[in-house]
């Protein structure tokens, strides 16, 4: 079983890697970490404490902490949806941390909260293959980015806030275009 201390250390390590701070309000932080611990215990993965998970991994995948929306939210508002991760300048200047709008796209919300999918009982039985009905190609907004300092490459909408490998700032990232030739 994951302990609160393990959840805390994991979050601290992830914050360090990506150049964030954890919420400076110790009580609030403990609430969030405890929420993550409880979700991990219930669902088997630490889904966002401030979002309702379905218990179906495929549906909840984007809200497993750190969620897919953290970097964009930290970039725009200075902290993520639940307030666990905080941008350096916001933490250092002790700027107020208030709730921000939900960035999770409507189609994912609809999928998570519809009658058909929202209930954990919909979980596929063990050994039964999960069929993904529509495997959409990656959104147009996604692209390759590489760190000019260390060569780290990632595939996402925006370059990371800092390079997780060498800690270079996002300005060191450059877009990358890959063409595959020799195929029909």
């Amino acid at each position, binding site marked *: 079983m994951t302990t609160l201390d393990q959840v805390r250390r994991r979050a601290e390590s992830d914050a360090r890697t990506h150049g964030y701070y954890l919420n400076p309000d110790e009580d*609030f932080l403990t*609430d*969030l970490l*405890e*929420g*993550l611990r*409880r*979700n991990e215990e219930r669902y088997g993965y630490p889904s966002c*404490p*401030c*979002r*309702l*998970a379905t218990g179906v991994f495929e549906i909840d995948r984007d809200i497993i902490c750190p969620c897919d929306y953290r970097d964009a939210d930290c970039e725009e508002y200075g902290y993520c949806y*639940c*307030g666990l991760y905080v941008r350096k300048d916001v933490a250092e200047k002790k700027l107020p941390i*208030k*709730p921000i709008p*939900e960035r999770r796209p409507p189609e994912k*919300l609809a999928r998570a*909260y519809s*009658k058909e999918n*929202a*209930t*954990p*009982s919909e979980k596929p039985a063990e050994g039964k293959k999960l069929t993904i009905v529509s495997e959409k190609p990656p959104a147009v907004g996604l692209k390759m980015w590489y760190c000019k300092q260390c060569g780290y490459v990632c595939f996402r909408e925006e370059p990371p806030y800092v390079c997780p490998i060498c800690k270079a700032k996002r300005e060191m990232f450059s877009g990358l275009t890959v063409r595959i030739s020799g195929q029909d």
Partner: protein
Amino acid sequence: MRITKVKGENKKHKVLLYALSTCGWCRKTKKLLADNSVEYEYVDVDLCSDEEYEQIRDDIIQRGGRIAFPTLIIDDVKLITGFDEDEIRKALGI
């Protein structure tokens, strides 16, 4: 459905809170209500059964809200999504 009633001296409004037991903003909302001695009822939606969840989801959507927590319903008519402290204070006169 497990509705928890929190007693308070301020009974001017009927206050219902849909919350998540794990959510920090929901906890802040509960604290704001308690600190101002507002009597209210809450449901931790993540602890509900599937049927109860569906009922709550339909209730929120019928009132024009979206599935986000905390959702506060005041006097059966006013719905506030999220821990919007100013809005909650204004609606409750606290």
